[in-house]
């Protein structure tokens, strides 16, 4: 069981890296065309400080944006889940907002809050990731079978009690499904801000400096570092899901 859950993914990653290395070697690509995994290690060693500092900046801003997305998305989802009128009013707005490419919002936000780099970045991470959470919570709440409400309502329970005891836990599996999507989206949001509107912070800025200096191994090393952070955050969400909504997971 643990062997399957830990070693199989690790072996898959190693196989992927070997294939990548082989592809670059067979094609005889120089590292300014495509870097190979063996080029990455020197890059990590050379820029270890930068990776740590910028990785941390990317990480905390992503988590902050995601945190806001959870709070705001859940609140909007609750409003839409409990009120049909609000659902009909907010859905088109939300869909429209979600349809706007966030890359176009980045310069607007950067101008709007000039110099507030952390705030800007968190804001974009938040904007790109709250939509799945809001939709899933609203669907989870609005599709609650009336009997679930009735078993407590028939005893005189109020709406708040019904929400805490039944509606909220029952929506958790949908919530975590959305959170898995949102966590990667938040990452994209953070990096979008860091790359499109560079301000010298985060892995996005490191990527940008690699681009400016034609340091291809550095650029690839940043991409892999981002993938690594994404995997770590994703599995944090999985662990939370197991702890809070493990009853819904069937092996």
């Amino acid at each position, binding site marked *: 069981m643990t062997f399957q859950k830990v070693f199989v993914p690790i072996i898959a990653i190693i196989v992927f890296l070997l294939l990548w290395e082989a592809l670059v070697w067979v094609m005889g690509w120089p590292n300014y065309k495509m870097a190979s995994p063996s080029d990455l290690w020197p890059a990590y060693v050379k820029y270890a400080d930068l990776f740590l500092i910028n990785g941390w900046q990317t990480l905390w801003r992503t988590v902050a944006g995601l945190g806001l997305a959870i709070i705001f998305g859940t609140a909007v989802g609750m409003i839409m889940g409990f009120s049909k009128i609000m659902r009909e009013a907010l859905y088109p707005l939300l869909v429209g907002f979600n349809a706007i490419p966030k890359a176009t919002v980045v310069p607007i936000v950067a101008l709007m809050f000039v110099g507030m780099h952390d705030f800007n970045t968190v804001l974009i991470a938040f904007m790109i990731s709250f939509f799945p959470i809001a939709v899933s919570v609203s669907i989870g709440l609005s599709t609650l*079978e009336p*009997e*679930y409400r*009735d*078993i*407590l*309502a*028939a*005893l*005189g*329970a109020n709406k708040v*009690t019904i929400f805490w*005891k*039944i509606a909220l*836990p*029952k929506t*958790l599996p949908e919530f975590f499904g959305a959170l898995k999507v949102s966590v990667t989206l938040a990452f994209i949001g953070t990096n979008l801000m860091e790359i499109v509107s560079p301000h010298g912070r985060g892995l996005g800025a490191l990527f940008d400096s690699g681009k400016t200096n034609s340091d291809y191994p550095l650029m690839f090393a940043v991409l892999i570092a981002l993938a690594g952070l994404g995997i770590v955050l994703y599995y944090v969400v999985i662990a939370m899901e197991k702890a809070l*909504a493990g*009853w*819904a997971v*069937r092996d």
Partner: protein
Amino acid sequence: MSDAPLIEIKNVSHTFQTAGGPLQVLDRLNISVKEGGFCAVVGPSGCGKSTLTRLVAGLLKPDEGEVWLHGEQVKSPRATVGMAFQNPVLLEWRTILRNVMLPLEIVPTKTSKAEQEERARYLLNLVGLEGFEDKRPSELSGGMRQRASLCRSLVHQPDVLILDEPFGALDAFTREDLWQTMHKVKEQEPFTGLLITHDLRESIFLADQVVVLSGRPAHAQYVLDVPMDGPRDLEHLYTHDAAEMLTILRHQIEIAQGRAPEGSPAEPA
């Protein structure tokens, strides 16, 4: 037990506003159930049977007429009512024991946590679910879930038990098992029952009074008194008396469905 009615439905009419215009489901319905009685309500599909349960539970206010429990008019839900539905609606994230104890978290009670747990275990034992206290609902069969749901509806010692087709989704053998469990439960945990069902055999096996509702909008078209002296076994369903009652009820249902002329031979003498 007194003979005064414990559940009284007086001249109740109710109309729903639907997309297709107003839909009247109940029309001056009268039903009364004495304390300790068990009333089964049968009728054609969509005749407002489930609306009736929501009215008695106080989850819905009738447009006209009144519902009385215990000599008090029902205006809002009350903790002296227990409810079970066709869908057992167990909470998947709780164990069976904690599911059964759920009403005690809502209803004000003076008992300690340990006493509450003891009561839940006693009920689970009564319906044959001992050993399943710590299982999740997903690990139980449909019949077992319905048994757990029954325990939950009784755990706060309600006076009135409302059952909305609780055995409707079960296979025939499981259903008959549960009918016998109901008799056992009623003997140990006396209640006044209101059972909504589509199953005529179920109605005469469990209830001492069967009310046939007419087609929509429903009124009490026919009331059959079933002689009942304590728990019975399934043999009862194969007696001549049972066959006669079923014939009468079958005929009344046909009238309610608008498929038989009134006053044909099966009308009781």
